[in-house]
């Protein structure tokens, strides 16, 4: 039993039209997703726009209510929890968002931002909280003089560190990282990635990393789920996925990542998917990739494959993998 289990998660958004707002269709953002996250592991959820990865994360963070499916945390069903009974879950599942200047309240000082979770969930005295805040800032590599500053006084890297300090304040079990370094400069990205890796070891955290950047995935994650149009199309331990991707979409995604090293570039096998992904309103029948897939056969157009276990914890949703 994993620490966090997501079973058959579905999230559909209604499309309304007309004066009365009649529902005329559904955007099937997440359409049957299963995810398992163990303790002290980094799981990555990878996909492009429209894949449903962000919506999945928001369901796990309970910012959206799922249309169907279950979320189990430490064996307990948290899918329908609301209000106060949600508190234990909230203490244990936190988040760091993409742009720290948008995820930190611009009118709050750093010390108040980091203290807020402590004030909300614990009975600590003001002095204890102040001490803890100072410790947290040290942990994330920030000098004490940022305490009284506002987010806009900080650099991108510093602001993201504050967001991280806030996320780990309650010693959560899982931190959802939503594109944690995409908005940062290259030289700062590495600092933050290393910080996240160190904190994971030190505090025995788990991360759910949501990103489109495969190079970040390869660096810090242990297990990867690849999503396309609301479904998981491939899942495998990281190195296994990167050295042996089997789903055509995963192969195309990987081959599309630009490579600085000229020697490695020459070795890259380019798989090009023509066109763009269709919208999640008109999901193609059968396998969702078939209109763009270079290997599509008759079967792919009619039947949607299940996730096939190819061993080593590697799963592929493709008819070719079953042979």
């Amino acid at each position, binding site marked *: 039993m994993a620490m966090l289990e997501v079973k058959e998660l579905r999230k559909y958004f209604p499309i309304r039209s007309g004066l009365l707002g009649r529902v005329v269709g559904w955007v099937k953002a997440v359409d049957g997703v299963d995810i398992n996250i163990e303790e002290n592991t980094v799981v990555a959820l990878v996909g492009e726009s429209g894949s449903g990865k962000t919506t999945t994360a928001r369901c796990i*963070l309970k*910012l959206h209510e799922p249309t169907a499916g279950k979320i189990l945390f430490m064996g307990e069903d948290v899918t329908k929890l609301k209000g106060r009974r949600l508190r234990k879950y909230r203490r244990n599942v*936190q988040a760091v*968002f993409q742009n720290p200047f948008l995820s930190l*309240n611009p*009118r709050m000082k750093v010390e108040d931002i980091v203290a*807020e979770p402590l004030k909300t969930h614990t009975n600590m005295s003001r002095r204890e909280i102040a001490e803890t805040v100072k410790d947290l800032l040290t942990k994330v590599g920030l000098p004490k003089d940022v305490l009284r500053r506002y987010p*806009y006084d900080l650099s991108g890297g510093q602001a993201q560190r504050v967001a991280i300090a806030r996320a780990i304040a309650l010693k959560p079990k899982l931190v959802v990282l939503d594109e944690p370094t995409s908005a940062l400069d290259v030289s700062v990205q590495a600092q933050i990635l290393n910080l996240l890796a160190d904190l994971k070891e030190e505090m025995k955290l788990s991360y759910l990393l949501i990103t489109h950047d495969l190079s970040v995935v390869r660096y810090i994650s242990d297990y990867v789920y690849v999503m396309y149009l609301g479904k998981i199309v491939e899942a495998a331990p990281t190195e296994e996925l990167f050295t042996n991707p089997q789903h055509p979409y995963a192969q195309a995604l990987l081959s599309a990542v630009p490579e600085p090293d000229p020697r490695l570039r020459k070795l890259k096998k380019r798989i090009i998917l023509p066109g763009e992904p269709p919208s999640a309103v008109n999901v193609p029948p059968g396998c969702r990739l078939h209109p763009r897939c270079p290997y599509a056969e008759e079967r792919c157009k009619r039947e949607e494959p299940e996730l096939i276990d190819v061993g080593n914890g590697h799963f592929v949703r493709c008819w070719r993998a079953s042979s």
Partner: protein
Amino acid sequence: MSSPSELRIMFRMIRRNPVSMLGLIIVVTFVVVGLIAPYILTRPEEAWGIAYNVKDRFLPPSLQHPFGTDEYGRDMFNRVLLGTRFSLMIAVGVVGLALLIGIPVGLVAGYVGGKVGTALMRITDMFLAFPPLLLAIALAATLGRGLTNTIVALAISWWPWYARLIFVQVNSIKSLPYVDAARVMGLGSLTIMFKHILPNALTPITVQAALDMGSAILEAAGLSFLGVGVPPPTPEWGLLVSMGWQSINRAWWISFFPGLAIVITVLGFNLLADAVREAMDPRLRKALIMKGV
């Protein structure tokens, strides 16, 4: 989103533009005079309208009476001076009350959204559909004359604007990541509304409200002029203008000076409003060329 350093930048921009500076000076003068007026009157009973001086009726402007005297022999300079206090009270009262009603409506409508939000905004829209001044006149006429009634009538015709402004702000703020972060942290809706959303939604509103005071003064003057606002003997500027109207041919100064006070004050607010608007335009700010930093 306005940060403290943005206010500083705004001040610097205003200082550099002589026209904006003029607006700032007028507004500051207005506020200061309005605050101290009752204490610096040279002829307080005349100003308050209690005393009459029949032998000094209709005197033209002179050293003794810089703004002349009116039909009751009361010194106009004192009356206009005291009128500043009333204009200030009206300005603050109207805008303050309108904010007090409008902000909660807009906040709840924006945050809760859905049917409640739509319903609240429809009510707001209904008020907005009336031409504001007509609504104020109708309300004032219904409530009767009086300082408080004028303030209330104007506030009731004004609050929908603020409700709408706040609604729009709240709507865009509530989808920002720091609100998500607050929810993920486990904060309750009320806490999120008042601690995270409201302070950030207020900033553009407060500046707007401060500058709206000019329009409030003008509208109140209009109401008093028409006879549905502040009653005599209160020396409210609009009322003073209307009272001098009958004698306009032989004593132009009775309407002129209060009228001038209105014009200058409202102009000051408008100039300042323009300057602030320019200062808040992000492109203009970045593109400003400094000759000799």
